[in-house]
């Protein structure tokens, strides 16, 4: 399942239709992510790169409103593990939450 989305990195957005006998398949190619996680000296940065963006683009973090507070980021990281099976070590969670709150949330430097 993982290979299915990693393989889509491409500079073009295409849709193809293959005709083979009676069968008609519609095939598309999706664009690659335009943004990456923001670099940071915080220890949670590397852990976020390893754990978060395997499943979704960094736009999920980047576009949150500036009042997004630490409890939100904490709840999201816990949800990603509990619901979406992200293989996050419990010991890494506080650093990931710290990175997210300080980089994308209401603890960003003014």
């Amino acid at each position, binding site marked *: 399942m993982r290979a299915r989305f990693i393989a889509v990195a491409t500079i073009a*957005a295409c849709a*193809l239709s293959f005709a083979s006998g009676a069968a008609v398949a*519609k095939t598309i190619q*999706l664009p690659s992510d335009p943004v990456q996680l923001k670099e940071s000296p915080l220890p949670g940065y590397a852990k976020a790169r390893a754990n978060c963006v395997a499943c979704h683009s960094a736009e999920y973090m980047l*576009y949150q409103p500036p009042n997004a507070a630490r409890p939100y980021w904490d709840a999201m990281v816990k949800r990603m593990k509990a619901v979406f099976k992200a293989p996050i070590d419990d010991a890494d969670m506080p650093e990931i939450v710290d990175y997210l709150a300080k980089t994308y949330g209401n603890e960003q430097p003014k």
Partner: protein
Amino acid sequence: MNQRTTNLLRRRLLLGGGSALAGSVLGCQTLAQTTFEQPFVNGKRNVVAFPEKRPLIVLTTRPPQLETPFEVFNDGIVTPNDAFFVRYHNAAIPTSIDGDAHIVKVGGNAAGKQVQFTVAQLRSQFKPIEYLAVNQCSGNSRALFNPRVTGGQLGNGAMGNARWVGVPLKELLARAEPKNSARQVTFDGLDEGVLGGGDFVKSLDIGHAMDGEVMVAYRMNDADLPMLNGYPVRLIVPGYYGTYWVKHLSSIEIIDSVYEGFWMKPAYRVPDNDCACIEPGTAPAATRPIGRFNVRSFITSHRDGARLAAGRAVTVRGIAFDGGQGIREVAYSTDGGESWREARLGADMGRYSFREFTFGFTPSAGSYDLRVRAWNRSGQSQPMEALWQPAGYMRNVVESVKVTAA
């Protein structure tokens, strides 16, 4: 010549001729990166043409979440397929599907039989129904909440109106012979969680699922569904938020219990009171699954900040819709809500469709705060002040469009 051959031919014509391969390439283009500034803080977005789509406002790339530029809603009451918004929850989405051989299974622990149909059979073995219906994301307009709430930061473009053709869900359920113990029906599509968790599964009560209107659609605006809108079949739940409109529909289960998977509980729930709202910053005492649309109306012909010529008559146009009662009246104000008059309604295209309205006015030099407010046939309307809830669903305040005449 059958419809499929016609479509293939049309695709080749669009490409300027046939291909040496037994296939055609649709809309293959290098991504031109432009941006759009949404009217809220942290609202800069990329504008990108995804497969089978014109350039749309990108909320997220992976999985794709795309918003319709608002000016599209002024082009007509039907939203073109290539402009229709896209919302996925998981990034393991199908990128190649045989649209005739795709199978929809119907079973479950409250079904007397397990049956399945290919899409080709859905087209040929059932009498189709069709209607126009609005699809709207639960979180459409979320970024306009004040105070802001977390989640997908959408403007007003996560909605669209299309003509859907398909099989009444009721007919498929009947083939599976629901037992008396049936309480709900669950719906699953081909999109999956990347790591196997969080599969997007939704449910409806059995009575709703059997109402004859809920549809398994295989046509959208006289064409196949775009891949990103659920090709080859999606569930249509007219009047209900898009969260129930499961894409790439593959499995339907009639069950003897109330389904409580993540996407029904705790996700997609609203405060369990009349307004589905609470005081900002508080928590709801109880919640229920989100349901029908409330009433909304928008001016589409003029954007906030538009400039008009003083002394010249203008026609203002817009759209209104609700959860299925149908729009009865749209009132307009040019003075910020101090005084109201009745707008003219356009043709009634069905109670689930956008309804056009127009009104004329001749501005003198000065500033005008244009507002529109709709009522449905049950007398439900829109609040003058925005309601608030923590998930940012169901915004339907009377919107304000400020224009200046000089």
